[in-house]
């Protein structure tokens, strides 16, 4: 093999043209580049919402005095709850089992009397522990409504003395003051879409050459290994950038995600990310040479980790240490914070540069690996 990195322009053009023809001919490639990103974006934009919304709860009114009714009304009027009223625990018990209610709030007997005496009896909040996140949230908001209600009654009562709270909190959320989870989920999902195109598609197309035996025909040509790899990288790199552009336009114009950084930064970040993505795809296909196995490994090592282990949905710092360690090997981990920043905050190169360098290093590593694997099997 003379020279790893020698390219013959004519041969390379021919190979790239062949690849593009195959892309255009197979409708499923267009599907993955155009349709899939949009579907993913819409699903992440609408389906995955972590924002507080109306939780279905049942309020059990064991007491029918005026204060009990007024507290029940407070729950009914709260924007956080979708209330079903009941007189006793029994009929609502089953609602907890099939998730028709996520919590039961019991206003106990003697509640009204207690309030008249100036001592509010505790109400009971029973949550569905099978969904811990919702359970925590419901308890917090249930208490919030209770406290507001108590405070408003106190204001009405003439003898009540207003409490002075010495400490006050003022909270500001930078970059996303309305706290829309879409605003960070949509940029994050762009990373997942690119992982799909980079790794999954590349893994399949190279494995296909091996499985169908066309690889041998290619090897019989004067083609160099570097030209072969370049011919697989260039088209999918461009496709990846193309669907990134589609996603970004959708994010900004349909989901109203702000874009405060520069297009240049977005381009640099996505190009850097496509390197490890494509490299991983090449390596997987060269190592497996079988489409089914390649697709499964690509799914397992690219899509699911960039979805679950990248900090996209779940905080990395909350994971156990061994898993935190694994997340270091997930390229999307380095892209997602930068993408969220480009969209929501602006160009912060001190954040981007280390991430870009790590992604490029991963990319080079994967390319070297796939070079070696593909090369060896030539003999």
């Amino acid at each position, binding site marked *: 093999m003379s020279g790893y990195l020698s390219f013959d322009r004519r041969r390379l053009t021919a190979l790239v043209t062949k690849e593009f023809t195959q892309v255009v001919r197979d*409708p*499923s490639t267009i599907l993955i580049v155009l349709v899939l990103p949009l579907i993913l974006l819409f699903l992440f934009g609408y389906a995955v919402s972590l924002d507080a919304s109306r939780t279905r709860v049942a309020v059990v009114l064991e007491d029918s005095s005026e204060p009990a009714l007024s507290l029940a009304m407070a729950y009914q009027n709260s924007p956080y709850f979708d209330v079903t009223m009941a007189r006793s625990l029994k009929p609502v018990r089953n609602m907890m089992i099939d998730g028709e209610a996520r919590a039961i709030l019991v206003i106990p007997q003697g509640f009204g009397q207690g309030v008249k005496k100036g001592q509010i009896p505790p109400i009971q909040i029973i949550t569905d522990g099978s969904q811990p996140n919702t359970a925590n949230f419901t308890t917090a908001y249930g208490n919030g409504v209770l406290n507001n209600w108590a405070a408003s009654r106190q204001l009405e009562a003439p003898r009540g003395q207003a409490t002075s709270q010495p400490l006050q909190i*003022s909270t500001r959320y930078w970059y996303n003051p309305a706290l829309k989870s879409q605003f960070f989920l949509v940029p994050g999902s762009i990373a997942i879409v690119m992982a799909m195109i980079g790794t999954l598609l590349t893994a399949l197309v190279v494995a296909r050459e091996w499985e169908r035996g066309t690889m041998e025909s290619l090897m019989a040509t004067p083609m160099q290994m570097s030209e072969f790899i370049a011919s697989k990288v260039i088209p999918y790199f461009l496709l990846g950038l193309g669907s990134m552009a589609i996603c970004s336009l959708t994010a900004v114009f349909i989901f109203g995600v702000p874009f405060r950084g520069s297009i240049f930064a977005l381009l640099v970040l996505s190009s850097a990310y496509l390197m490890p993505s494509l490299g991983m795809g090449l390596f997987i296909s060269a190592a497996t040479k079988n489409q089914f196995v390649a697709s499964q490994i690509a799914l397992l090592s690219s899509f699911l980790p960039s979805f*679950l282990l990248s900090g996209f949905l779940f*905080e990395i710092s909350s994971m156990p240490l061994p898993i935190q360690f694994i997340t270091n090997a997930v390229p999307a981990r380095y892209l997602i914070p930068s993408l969220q920043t480009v969209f929501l905050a602006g160009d912060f190169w001190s954040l981007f540069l280390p991430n870009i360098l790590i992604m490029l290093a991963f990319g080079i590593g994967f390319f070297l690996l796939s070079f070696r694997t593909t090369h060896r099997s030539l003999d």
Partner: protein
Amino acid sequence: MERLRAIILKEIWALLRDPKGRIILFAPPLLQLLVFTFATTLDVNDARIGVLDRSGGVQSSELVQQISASDNFAEIRRLSSHDDLARAIDDQEIIAAIIFEPTFDRNLTKGKTATVGIVLDGRRSNASQIVAGYISSIIASANVSADKQTATMTSGARSIATNWYNPSLDYIWFTLPSLIAIVSAVAGLSVTAQSVARERELGTFDQLMVSPLRVHEILIGKMIPPWLLGMLNGTIFLAVATLFFQVPFTGSLILFYLSLAVYMLALIGVGMFVSAASTTQQQAFLGSFLAMVPIILLSGYASPIENMPEWLQMTTLINPARYFVVLVQGLFLKAMPFDMVVQQLWPLGLIALATLSASAWLFRARME
């Protein structure tokens, strides 16, 4: 019957023949279950936050002490200026910063209300809201202790919170059962989707057609191995969840297997539809992926169905995983009784019937 047995055997061999393929059938699902169980928590622990104390008095440093004593924060970074604060947040070194303005201690000693400022990174709005909750509750408890002398009605309003089914709100008890639904969907769909497409691409499908096998025999033969695989994987997951992770299983095993069987049938119908529609493995793979993502995202596992817009909530009604997630959660934690299982099982059965008939129809149509 003889022919049917032969093709089922052939299909099982085709699945198990390749050593790489064999590993792929069992190792990744199990690995996914383990890694994702630990990874997918919406809790926020060990968050890194910063403090900008421009007051420097006794009260503010006492409050900082209390905050750093909390288990929820890994590291409290001292910030020297507003610029320093902005840089730390911009580079995501900290998720939140607490600011004490110079007047903080002065105001408190004068008996006036002093303000604690919290700046949070809205780029991670979910986590930062949780962090804001932690900080607020620490400050609120400082308020209460300062307020103890004047017992007021506000501090008198109380509630007793009880968490049914999962008293200590262990997150794993939520993720593991739900992941059974997700992981078996991923495995079941991708295996079924490849079956016909692979034979088509390699040209062996024509051989099947000239064999004495009837169309329905080929179809059943293609469906049974992935179904068995799904049941086997389900059993492994059940064992791992209950024996290794000690998640309680309070429901009936028979109902669990019944639900799993119907769920797998519904998924295999989807997978076979994709497989029959595609001519290459690449198309089959992408098609199954296209089906998989909505099945996972609209199942109620990734985020609660109640949070979705109304029209999307309606769409989840045709998602088999939606019912199975309720079923596994119910059977694991809530001792779901028979009649309530049936309530979830009949729509699941209808979906299975629909996907299986649709795939049989397409399969037949594409044969001719």
